[in-house]
């Protein structure tokens, strides 16, 4: 056996080892998190929220191939749903789970409302119009003071609780977010594998040919916008509950761009990639905090480097959750 052949034979086993290692590290991190100081748990909570946002946006960008730069609008819809329905602002104090349902439905509705006017747009045009949509939502929030508190935002939000269990400390949110992220990831992954997911991929590859095989692209795209926005909105509601304060500052264009970057750097169309992308873009700035403004430069360089060496992302589309599971447990 030549060296090349034996290397080739060894490869599956070693990549299986890598898969196991990654899996073990993830489990260890999860197990260790509750014992960390609150500051670190908050960072991890925010990481999980970004992963959730990434999973949502990836449905539109990664699966369906539509560049949506206004995703933060849905995040805002969810956050303000919680802020208005569980605070002294309107003197409403609905239960957390009820608000999650309301936020999810409002998210789906706004997703479709955004989807309808942009159905005919693709590429740059779509990016610009969705960007405008995100800004419009933020500007509206900024200006309807009587409802949203304007730039001051809404403070003193209720403490969340689920079935009598209070969700208030960072570690409570950690467990909640972990469950929600796993659920959202599972739903997104199973959607991708479903017949609808195949249709999304076909639309991404060639929209016109997709119509030619009988796909109602209008419905398929609206389904993508709706599920994506639902996840974004749920992330917003949990975010608001964890901060117990919302203001328009959290929903700027920069946030949308950050989520897009996470997806592109991590691996477009791949949930595993989103986790990697979020880890880099959310955790690294924390780690580099002491280097102050240098960290922006460093992050920029890292991004350029990654785009050059791994143009398909850290974990490319072809290495999706199916592959990981097969590596870990299968054949």
């Amino acid at each position, binding site marked *: 056996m030549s060296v090349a052949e034996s290397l080739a034979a060894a490869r599956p086993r070693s990549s299986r080892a890598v898969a196991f290692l990654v899996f073990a590290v993830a489990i260890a991190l999860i197990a260790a998190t509750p014992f960390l100081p609150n500051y670190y748990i908050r960072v991890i909570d925010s990481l999980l929220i970004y992963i959730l946002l990434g999973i949502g946006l990836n449905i539109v960008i990664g699966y369906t191939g539509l560049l949506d730069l206004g995703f933060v609008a849905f995040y805002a819809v969810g956050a303000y749903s919680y802020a208005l329905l569980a605070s002294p602002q309107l003197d409403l104090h609905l239960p957390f789970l009820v608000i999650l349902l309301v936020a999810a439905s409002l998210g789906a509705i706004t997703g479709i409302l955004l989807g309808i006017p942009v159905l005919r747009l693709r590429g740059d045009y779509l990016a610009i119009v969705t960007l405008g949509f995100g800004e419009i939502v933020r500007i509206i929030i900024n200006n309807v003071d009587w409802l949203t508190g304007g730039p001051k935002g809404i403070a003193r939000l209720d403490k969340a609780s689920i079935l009598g269990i209070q969700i208030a400390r960072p570690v409570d949110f950690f467990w909640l977010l972990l469950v929600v992220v796993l659920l959202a990831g599972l*739903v997104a992954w199973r959607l991708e594998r479903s*017949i*609808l997911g*195949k249709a999304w991929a*076909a639309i991404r*590859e060639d929209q*016109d*040919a997709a119509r030619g*095989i*009988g796909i109602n692209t209008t419905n398929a795209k609206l389904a993508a916008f709706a599920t994506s926005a639902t996840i974004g909105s749920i992330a917003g509601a949990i975010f608001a509950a964890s901060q117990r304060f919302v203001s328009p500052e959290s929903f700027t264009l920069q946030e949308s761009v950050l989520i897009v970057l996470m997806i592109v750097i991590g691996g477009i169309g791949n949930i595993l990639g989103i986790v990697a992308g979020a880890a880099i873009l959310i955790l690294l700035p924390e780690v580099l905090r002491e280097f102050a403004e240098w960290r922006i430069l460093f992050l920029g360089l890292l991004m350029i480097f990654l785009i050059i060496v791994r143009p398909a992302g850290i974990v490319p589309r072809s290495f999706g959750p199916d592959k990981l599971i097969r590596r870990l447990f299968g054949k």
Partner: protein
Amino acid sequence: MTLVFDRLRKEYGQVVAIDDVTASFAPGLIHGVIGPNGAGKSTLINMTAGSYTVSAGSIALDGKRLDKLKKYQIANSGVARTYQNIRLFDQMTALENLEVCFYPSDVGGTWKEVVWPPYASARRDHRREKCMEILRFFDLQGHADAEAGSLPYGRQRMLEIARALVCNPRLLLLDEPAAGLNHHETADLTAKLAAQRSPDRITIIVEHDMDLVMALCDNIIVMHHGKLLFQGTPAEVQASTDVQLAYLGTANDIDDIRAAAQDRRAQLGIRTRRRS
């Protein structure tokens, strides 16, 4: 008489691409559409499949007006097509390219597929079984998991035809299926197209390769400058001086038409090699 063009017309600004064409196509037969470059052959296919709108006249399949429908609705009425320039879903596997064709019948079960894995795998197995059957028919079973865009040109042509056939269409429209194929591949394609013939299916083939057309077609339509110049059996077409004139101006036998097709093939061969 199940597919009917009635005074069909297509104008692109000043250009009249299809000029009042009336024709009908019976099921169970293979219909060839031939004619020089720019005669309007692709335009006919594109209008029938809903890629282009109709300027005037009508297209009806089994009495149902296709020209009033959206493209995806036309597909769901049993119309399947291939394109003059291959249009596969490049980053999807060969198998997925066919699987996605079951969208219209299966999309209603999407949420059930998401929440109930046994249902999802049952549906997927069902779909894939049908797809594998077609892939085997086109000798593509060994490439099921290869990305469509990475397949050799000839295989891509076959895969596109497989995709058109997977949902058992009532009307099959093929736009230059043999373009860019070598002799061996063309012979193979001819045999496969003959084998897919079924009493319920209307097959329409636009093609420059006269050997293929003459061998395969029961009925041939000759287009010239957007007009229907001639319609008849292969023998009648070969005997027609009108057809020869249309093709080469001075042509005096079918060999010249063949030569024109050869030229065309060479031309496409170069183009496709550059493409891939």
